[in-house]
């Protein structure tokens, strides 16, 4: 407007003519208020250099949850504060004074200029990634009121919460009778469900999956173990997990032997791993079966352990393929001392192997011990057989099996997330089963230097602190994520642990192929849409929804399908209590204090859940089941947990007087937890043989099964997915950090990694733009090829693989400026029960069971 010349003095006098008269009487203040009369300030300005240290716990950037202090600079004059950096806490048994780049990234993330500070409301009804939603700002509280009024019009099964199983989400979904499904938990789903079925059998006094961050239900004694097998455990994401790394480094310096199986040669394989095998993707199961074969054939197992603590000696009916039990449900064994059937727990000398004909209720039954069935199961799985599948030399597999067994029980096969036995392949649940069997055969479960079981410290559920006064309504008969089609896992979710992993890998399919759900509420900053596999299907489905809401730290691609986006506080703006069960050697609790008050109109999840819950199902959100707002549940779970552990009187006491940390450095009692929580209470047993799988037409013991997909023609590159050590999904704390983006670019994280050999065969040069496409046979609907530069690197050690990095990039044109990258999820086909059930009774996603082709763009 000033192109025609400068605003003249005359013009601005005119401009102000409308209002200037009014001002001379009163000070023109709206957002500023008078603290001192003008000119009466003492004029003594304090220095800028006051510091304070605020205890915090790492904001779920990985499973470690390192405790540290956030160093904050304070300007005493104005009261303003700013976090500067992190300082380690050496007294923390997990981090031992260390932390990683992600913790530092969180500090600067607080001050990200693109943070969402207000609630957004769509005015343009047309949804889509490049649609302009016509956002307007609304007060968060008003928006929630509007949302609730809209939600009230829908039946419980028409509402989906895409949310982790935290106490508030659980209570909200249960009180409304709506489905909760979440990606975060699915990453750990295969671990979680196999662990539930084999070991933990929730609910029990130790385990509550929300607070065992990875749902892995135990930790690994990295610094004391003598021998570790890593089936892809050394993913790039592990390169920055300080709470694990400091222990691994100590173990390595003390002589831990580490054997790595990974088609990638990660930095760990350069030195920390003693041996590294570039295994064929999706064939780890063959190696574990061959190890079991060797250990059984050569009787290298810990006989005392498997007799006392597992069902190895329990008898299984060869007809029904289920455990034989007495009238009290107790497992039966063949007593070699008395030559008769006895309850396993009462039998001094149970037969470990063999076939036995026994009489049950007057009927002759042929039964075999679990160990015998396991032997039968793996009898053909020789190391040579495994070599043919995995391309790991058979002689090495046999040697490693022997060395592993010899080092027992201080051995372990760490599995935390999407690494070994995560939901990577259709056979990953069998791999997890095999890994647990190896831990059982070596007696390393619940053993110092092996697999550490959780301490008894627990944070209660809301149901414990604020009991419900009447039963929750039924969950939907048909869940949109198809969990109801998977009876084994659905039983656990419905009746044992509501925080159990959801079947998020199928949510997109469910939303797209049905009209059941009308309302989707994404909770969990930057995880919702970004985290989906084949998000294009969910995107198409969201176009037809009546109401979509996101609670997020910043508006991401998902926002372009939302009606409302509510601003979430930054991770460091929330208080927390953490029990860090990933390293449970010593019961330990650490506290985190908000570094600052969340700016703008941000709202915490607990407040959202309470408001929706109280409005829609008040009987579950008041202490007496009334609708009295004065009787809202308090949910003081932190106070309760601290008091129960004897750590502090309450959270304030813990923070102010106990330095926000409590550790009980008692010595680890081997096998104590198994005794206390196992299936056959009180003498506890790990189940190697899983009857529930038989009931749904699968095998009760792991058998070799190939991947769901196969290499075909040009679609010959197995898709490997990892993430940089400095990223976590699409967390804006990291992908919106310009310095970290520079780091990523310098290390080619924005590229698709291809082996030099494959590059040569394809005629590709370093830096070429390529198109990566999924085999249409496995992705018949809504394919979306990925375009990227390539990086030729021998770190991709096989020419039949390519590597993509997870959690980078944006798609919306409104978000694209200055942001780079591609989306790995676009290449991963939606799963659905029809293709899933024949392969996998857990129903977890198979995110790397994909073959792609590459061509020059």
């Amino acid at each position: 407007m000033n192109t025609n010349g400068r605003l003249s003095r005359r013009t601005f006098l005119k401009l102000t003519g409308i209002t200037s008269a009014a001002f001379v009487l009163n000070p023109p203040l709206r957002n500023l208020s008078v603290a001192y009369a003008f000119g009466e300030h003492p004029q003594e300005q304090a220095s800028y250099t006051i510091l304070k240290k605020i205890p915090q716990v790492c904001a779920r950037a990985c499973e470690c949850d390192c405790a540290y202090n956030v160093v904050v600079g304070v300007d005493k004059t104005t009261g303003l504060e700013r976090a500067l950096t992190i300082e380690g806490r050496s007294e923390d048994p997990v981090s031992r004074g260390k932390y990683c780049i992600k913790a530092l990234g969180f500090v600067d993330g607080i001050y990200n200029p693109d943070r969402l500070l207000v609630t957004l409301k769509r005015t343009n009804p047309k949804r889509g990634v490049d649609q302009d939603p016509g956002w307007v700002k609304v007060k968060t509280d008003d928006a929630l009121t509007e949302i609730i009024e809209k939600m009230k019009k829908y039946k419980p099964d028409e509402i989906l919460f895409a949310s982790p199983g935290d106490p508030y989400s659980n209570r909200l979904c249960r009180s409304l009778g709506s489905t909760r499904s979440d990606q975060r938990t699915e990453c750990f789903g295969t671990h979680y469900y196999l662990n539930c079925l084999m070991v933990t059998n929730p609910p029990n006094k130790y385990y509550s999956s929300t607070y065992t961050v990875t749902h892995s239900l135990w930790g690994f004694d990295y610094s004391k173990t003598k021998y570790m097998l890593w089936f892809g455990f050394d993913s790039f994401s592990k390169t920055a997990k300080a709470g694990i790394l400091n222990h691994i480094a100590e173990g390595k310096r003390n002589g831990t032997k580490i054997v790595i199986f990974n088609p990638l040669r990660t930095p760990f394989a350069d030195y920390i791993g003693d041996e590294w095998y570039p295994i064929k993707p999706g064939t780890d199961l063959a190696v574990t079966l061959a190890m079991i074969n060797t250990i059984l054939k050569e009787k290298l197992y810990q006989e005392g352990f498997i007799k006392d603590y597992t069902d190895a000696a329990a008898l299984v009916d060869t007809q029904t393929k289920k455990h034989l039990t007495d009238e009290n449900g107790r497992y039966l064994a063949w007593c070699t001392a008395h030559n008769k059937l006895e309850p396993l727990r009462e039998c001094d000398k149970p037969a470990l192997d063999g076939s036995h004909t026994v009489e049950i209720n007057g009927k002759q039954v042929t039964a075999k011990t679990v160990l015998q069935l396991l032997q039968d199961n793996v009898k053909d799985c020789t190391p040579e057989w495994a070599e043919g599948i995995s391309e790991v030399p058979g002689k090495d597999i046999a040697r490693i099996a022997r060395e592993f067994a010899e080092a027992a029980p201080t051995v372990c096969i760490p599995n935390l997330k999407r690494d070994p036995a995560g939901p990577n392949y259709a056979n990953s649940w069998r791999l997890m089963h095999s890994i647990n069997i190896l831990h059982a055969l070596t007696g390393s479960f619940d053993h110092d230097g092996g697999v550490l079981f959780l301490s008894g410290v627990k944070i209660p559920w809301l149901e414990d602190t604020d009991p419900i006064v009447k039963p929750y309504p039924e969950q939907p008969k048909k869940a949109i994520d198809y969990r109801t089609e998977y009876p084994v896992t659905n039983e656990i979710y419905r009746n044992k642990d509501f925080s159990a992993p959801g079947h998020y890998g199928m949510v997109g399919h469910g939303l797209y192929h049905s009209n059941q759900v009308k309302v989707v509420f994404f909770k969990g900053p930057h995880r919702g849409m970004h985290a989906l596999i084949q998000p294009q299907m969910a995107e198409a489905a969201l176009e037809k929804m009546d109401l979509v809401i996101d609670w997020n730290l910043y508006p991401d691609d998902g926002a372009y399908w939302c009606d409302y986006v509510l601003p979430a506080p930054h991770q460091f703006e929330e208080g927390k209590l953490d029990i860090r069960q990933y390293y449970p050697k010593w019961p330990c609790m650490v506290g985190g204090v908000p570094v600052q008050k969340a700016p703008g109109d941000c709202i915490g999840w607990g407040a959202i859940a309470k408001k929706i819950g109280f409005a829609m199902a008040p009987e579950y959100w008041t202490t007496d089941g009334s609708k009295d707002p004065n009787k809202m549940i308090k949910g003081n779970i932190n106070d309760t947990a601290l008091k129960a552990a004897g750590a502090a009187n309450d959270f304030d006491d813990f923070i102010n007087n106990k330095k926000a940390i409590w550790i009980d450095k008692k010595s680890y009692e081997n096998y104590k937890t198994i005794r206390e929580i196992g299936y056959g209470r009180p003498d506890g047993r790990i189940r190697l043989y899983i009857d529930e799988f038989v009931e749904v037409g699968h095998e009760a013991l792991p058998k070799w099964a190939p991947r769901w997909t196969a290499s075909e023609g040009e679609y010959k590159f197995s898709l490997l997915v990892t993430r940089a050590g400095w990223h976590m999904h699409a967390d804006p704390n990291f992908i919106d950090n310009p310095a970290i983006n520079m780091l990523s670019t310098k290390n080619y994280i924005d590229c698709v990694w291809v082996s030099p050999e494959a590059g040569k065969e394809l005629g590709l040069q370093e830096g070429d733009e390529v198109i990566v496409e999924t085999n249409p046979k496995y992705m018949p609907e809504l394919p979306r090829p990925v375009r990227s530069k390539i990086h030729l690197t021998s770190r991709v050690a096989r020419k039949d693989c390519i590597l993509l990095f997870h959690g980078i990039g944006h798609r919306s044109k409104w978000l694209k400026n200055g942001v780079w990258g591609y989306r790995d999820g676009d290449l991963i086909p939606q799963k659905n029960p029809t293709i899933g059930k024949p392969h996998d009774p857990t129903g977890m996603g198979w995110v790397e069971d994909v073959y792609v082709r590459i061509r020059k763009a």
Partner: protein
Amino acid sequence: MAQYAILLDTRFCTGCNTCFYKCVQENRLHDVAENGNTRTLVYINDTGMYHHRCMHCVDPTCVANCEKQALTKTEYGPVLWDAEACIRCQTCVEKCPFHIPMFDEANRKIVKCSMCAHRDFDQNKDAQPACVEVCPTGALEFGERQAMVDKAKKMAADFKLNIYGLEENGGTSLLILTQEDPLKVGYPEVEKKAAAEGGSSWKVVGAVAGAAAVAAVAYVGLKKYGERKDQIDRGEK
């Protein structure tokens, strides 16, 4: 005054780059880092971890070639840059045999490691450079140079490792242990000379004057923090 050095055992480096970002935060280098200019950065190369950071030569080429004495070798180890004396001729960028100093065009700054001299490790025995403090695996170690040299030699003998920096350019105050040939990992080939024992042929400046007064805590806040960094960059004469 003791001369200090950093010992980097690349076998334990996973390329997490916590050292890089800690350095950015410690020295408030966000702006230059965005432009790709860093005091320390780890490249995850195919053959190993290449740390691009100042070697703090015993007899630094940059110091020898700086006409304005904007770069100085301190007697306790670090090579420091003086922002006020520097005329931005970028001779140091050109002459450094290790290709370390970077010039940030936008901010008109030479970017290179100060070994966190502001942490005043000579006065404060517990202090160490920020990168060393944070390294999750303990791949970085800090101490008196002779002790680090002795340790490097012992580890090289025990584990059949290479030492980069012992003889390169006459010896450096960053000593790097590698399993592979360091040149294959990415470290540049630099002429080996007999170690310049007993100090540099160039004028060695004294300790950072008055540093102890402000470095009682490792971090200082806000404004003063930045000012303090500038003082260190200027060698605080």
